[in-house]
């Protein structure tokens, strides 16, 4: 099962992943703050099926927040 795992306490909300994702399924979780005080990146469960496991998000992330599993 494909997964995109966000180690959300490392996320600084820079949104490089948002821009990089070709399917535009990454967003910053406006309902929560991580331990640093940022809105962490996330993919809504219903959007996960659109993920093509390209890994672009992880490639652009400067903080190794993202793990991509196909």
């Amino acid at each position: 099962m494909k997964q995109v795992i966000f180690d959300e306490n490392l996320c600084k909300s820079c949104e490089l992943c948002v821009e990089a994702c070709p399917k535009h399924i990454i967003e910053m979780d406006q309902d929560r703050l991580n331990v640093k005080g940022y809105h962490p990146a996330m993919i809504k469960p219903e959007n996960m099926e659109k993920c093509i496991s390209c890994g672009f998000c992880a490639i652009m992330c400067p903080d190794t927040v993202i793990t991509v599993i196909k």
Partner: protein
Amino acid sequence: MAVVFQKTKGLTDVPFHYCPGCTHGIVHRLVAEVMEELGVLDKAIGVAPVGCAVFAYEYFNCDMQEAAHGRAPAVATGIKRVHPDKVVFTYQGDGDLAAIGTAETVHAAARGENITVIFINNAIYGMTGGQMAPTSLIEQETLTTPYGRKPENNGYPVKMCEMLSTLDGASYIERVSVYDVKHVLQAKKAIKNAFTAQLNKKGFSMIEVLSSCPTNWGLSPNEALKWIKDNMEPYYPLGVYKNTLEEAK
């Protein structure tokens, strides 16, 4: 189930202190991935600069030395002359490499020291609050060029790849960027070539990475990446400036 992307063993678990969207994080990871993939983590010794990356010694999973500002290539020379069989690299910003450390940079290249230099060019001094760098562009506003950099007062930006490629001791010099996925992947290839040049004892290798400083440029992280492409790349063309790896064949 296959892992498409996971964090490299070349980085420790210490979280990066860099600003949100700072490309230091991307480049650190590429260097760490390359060292892991080449299987040289257990024989790598890195030299950290003075600048935003001053804590680089916390992030790479190998022995590290902290250098004085600009002196990393000299420190790396000392280490490499004691341990010629180890992989020695420096990681430096534009003030470290192209201002205070120009002599150390030029002469390490001239001597053909078998070290690999990672040069982060973001056209500004980050750590100290946004002053002009030798690589700041004409008319670029910085803390010490509030009216824009003027050639009459501050001269012209310095092109390190072009300059160093004139030296016979330089074996692999390439300028890359990390402003999108395609360029990040190309940057990683370049870094791998640079470390390979060292492993093949070809001489001095340097990868100049056009990078961003969202905080001091006053831009969002994504806007800053675009600024690299629109403003820096025309002045600092990407590409290979010196390559003696081919001649080995």
